[in-house]
């Protein structure tokens, strides 16, 4: 057992750190630090900086624009990026549809779609959930009916995150209504500009426009936009669920969140003292720091397994459940730290009448209730672990 990083790995960490420190634009850095949502332009600007360095899709095979890094290097990269407050790359292109296309797509599709993902020329969004299909994803009812060289798509996709920015959407659609529910599903790419596609904002409780409903009304999609074979969509969906799950805990980001809470709590006055000296608050901080340490070592254990050629199995579910709980706990601590100053409602992109750092405290606490619900709720993750780990 050797839990040290090698000299080369440490040098790599320095390289990533130096890169972010030099290249992350100051305005984006500040917004990230204040927990403000970024605009489309800001996301794309940062992703293009990464692309220029060749780091926008590090885990991809080299032939498609990846880096060829080891699992440990990929971990270090994510850890440093999170720790430095660099915006996470929007996952829908780089971490979801991209890997699906290079794994299941044909050469034509690879040539057509992958370069624009690598270079952030095209913004993707995800069409999985539906108003009637949440945790039971396979019950989806959006229909795609073959008509000559086209599929005709009808239905509604729910929770389309940042769909208002998107150029393309990847969808799970039902192509065989008579097959068993997992077996009649296909994976389809749809241009958002196609007639019949409309995006309807869904405002979440903090007041932000982050998610949408996407409606499809007789949308004609060329057959060549099908990925893999017809009715193979569920296999692709399952592949994505286990792909790139070691960073699901986002330790670097958790550590940055903790540093931020500590920094602000050290300035919040409580009579003659400051909040961070208050025993109850200090205990919560210590508590969360200990939990982050435990999770970090679990991530490293999984990483060691992957490095030796294993695949992360049910551990991904553990990391998802515990990582998201900690993310939520962090927003809760910042809200508590803000106290009365968290009262003021601040619309997306607006200024608070109170201290700058408090503007998003309540909004992010509200918004982060999502993390234990999306991507397979905590309860679904526990069902997965009960089956895979406990054999129940």
């Amino acid at each position, binding site marked *: 057992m050797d839990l040290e990083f090698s000299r080369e790995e440490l040098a790599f960490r320095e390289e990533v750190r130096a890169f972010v420190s030099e290249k992350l634009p100051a305005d984006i850095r500040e917004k990230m630090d204040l927990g403000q949502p970024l605009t489309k332009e800001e996301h794309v600007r940062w992703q293009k900086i990464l692309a220029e360095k060749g780091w926008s899709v590090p885990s991809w095979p080299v032939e498609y624009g990846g880096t060829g890094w080891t699992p440990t290097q990929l971990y270090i990269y994510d850890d440093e990026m999170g720790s430095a407050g660099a915006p996470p790359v929007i996952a829908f292109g780089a971490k979801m549809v991209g890997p699906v296309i290079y794994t299941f797509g044909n050469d034509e599709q690879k040539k057509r779609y992958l370069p624009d993902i690598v270079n952030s020329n095209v913004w993707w969004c995800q069409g999985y959930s539906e108003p009637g299909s949440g945790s039971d994803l396979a019950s989806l009812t959006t229909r795609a009916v073959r008509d000559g060289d086209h599929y005709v798509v009808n239905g509604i996709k729910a929770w389309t995150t940042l769909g208002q920015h998107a150029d393309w959407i990847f969808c799970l659609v039902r192509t065989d209504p008579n097959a068993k529910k997992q077996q009649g599903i296909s994976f389809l790419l749809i241009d958002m500009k196609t007639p019949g596609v409309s995006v309807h904002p869904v405002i979440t409780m903090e007041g932000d426009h982050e998610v949408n409903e996407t409606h499809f009304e007789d949308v004609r999609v060329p057959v060549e936009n099908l990925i893999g074979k017809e009715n193979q969509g569920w296999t692709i969906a399952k592949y994505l669920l286990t792909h790139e799950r070691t960073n699901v805990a986002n330790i670097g980001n958790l550590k940055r969140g903790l540093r931020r809470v500590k920094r602000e709590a050290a300035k919040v006055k409580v009579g003659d003292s400051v909040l961070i000296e208050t025993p109850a608050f200090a*205990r919560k901080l210590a508590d969360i720091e200990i939990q982050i340490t435990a999770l970090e070592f679990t991530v490293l254990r999984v990483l060691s397994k992957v490095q030796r050629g294993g695949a992360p199995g049910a551990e991904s579910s553990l990391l998802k459940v515990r990582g998201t709980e900690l993310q939520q706990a962090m927003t809760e601590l910042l809200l508590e730290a803000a106290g009365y100053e968290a009262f003021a409602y601040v619309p997306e992109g607006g200024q608070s009448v109170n201290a700058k750092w408090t503007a998003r405290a309540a909004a992010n606490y509200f918004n982060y209730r999502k993390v234990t619900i999306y991507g397979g709720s905590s309860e679904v993750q526990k069902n997965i672990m009960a089956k895979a780990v*406990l054999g129940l």
Partner: protein
Amino acid sequence: MDFSFSEEQNLLRDSVKKFVDKSYTWDKRKALLESDTGFSRDNWRAFAELGWTALPFAEADGGIGGNALDTMIVLEELGKGLVLEPFLVGVIFAGGILKRADAKTKSKHLPQLIGGESIYSVAYAEPTSRFDLFQVETTAKKEGQSYVLSGKKLAVIGGNAADVLIVSARTSGSARDKSGITLFAVDAKQPGVQRTGYRTVDGLHAANIVLESVKLSADDIIGPVDQGLSLLESAADETIVGLGAEAVGVMQVLYESTVAYTKERKQFGVPIGSFQVLQHRMVDQYMEYEQSKSMLYMATMAVDSGQGLAKAASALKVQIGRSGRQIGQAAIQNHGGMGMTEELPVSHFFKRITLIDLFLGNADYHLDRYRQLG
């Protein structure tokens, strides 16, 4: 970054497993539990012959120079067998103090500890100290060339049968001063040492000890006069890491036996493990177990590197205290009425994990210590 074990470490684990399988069948354990001393000197000699008592000591001190990971493996396996010999306190804690002392002390005590001829224990807790190692009211008054010890010590694990007690006593200052504490080696049979032995609720044996004008010489001092606290603290932190290993072993049995039981036990015509409420409780056990194991590895590394040991030990103690409670309580709950009985091993593991939290400072105590260490 590699969490795999070496060939030697796998062999070591196998040898402990073999011992547990052979010498700790449930019947043999029960007989030991009901014996006077509560453990077996023969087993202790076997530990010495197998080299376990030599594991955490440098070759120069007569040990075999194992690292903290080796010790972890032994304790994890002993934990799975609910082994009753006070290995943790006798070897890791007492030995941890001795190996940090001067050469003269080491050469006087370590050979008999490593050889298994004398069993050591540590008497530090007092009626008013709760978990603070520095709260010491036992006094050691200097009279000429001698020291005279008087005071009361609580919960000395293995103290009923130990041959030598390492006692913290105050040579200067007042009850809560961090300096002024000196450690002494006290022969348990010496006049003035009154031991009240008892069985602990988790099946170990311990003693409360009254020291009444116990006369010692300067040769009995372990480590520096007045500055014994740091020795005691470092050894206690190393012991906490060993305790963490034992706890992880205990937790593994608790959670795995619960899963196994719910696959067998039928109610309403189906195995109770098919019920989602029970499944999720067991998944929580699994997650707590894995997090504890991760924390154990982290702290084990800290023992070997010597970097940040105090904080790592406190973090681990918080983790195992809380995880142990969840895993233990869930184990009993999911076993239902059968979990309440003395007959099933699960209740014995539950009792052990419960006392592990209270030993050397519970989770609340270490959460405060962790934050105060900054």
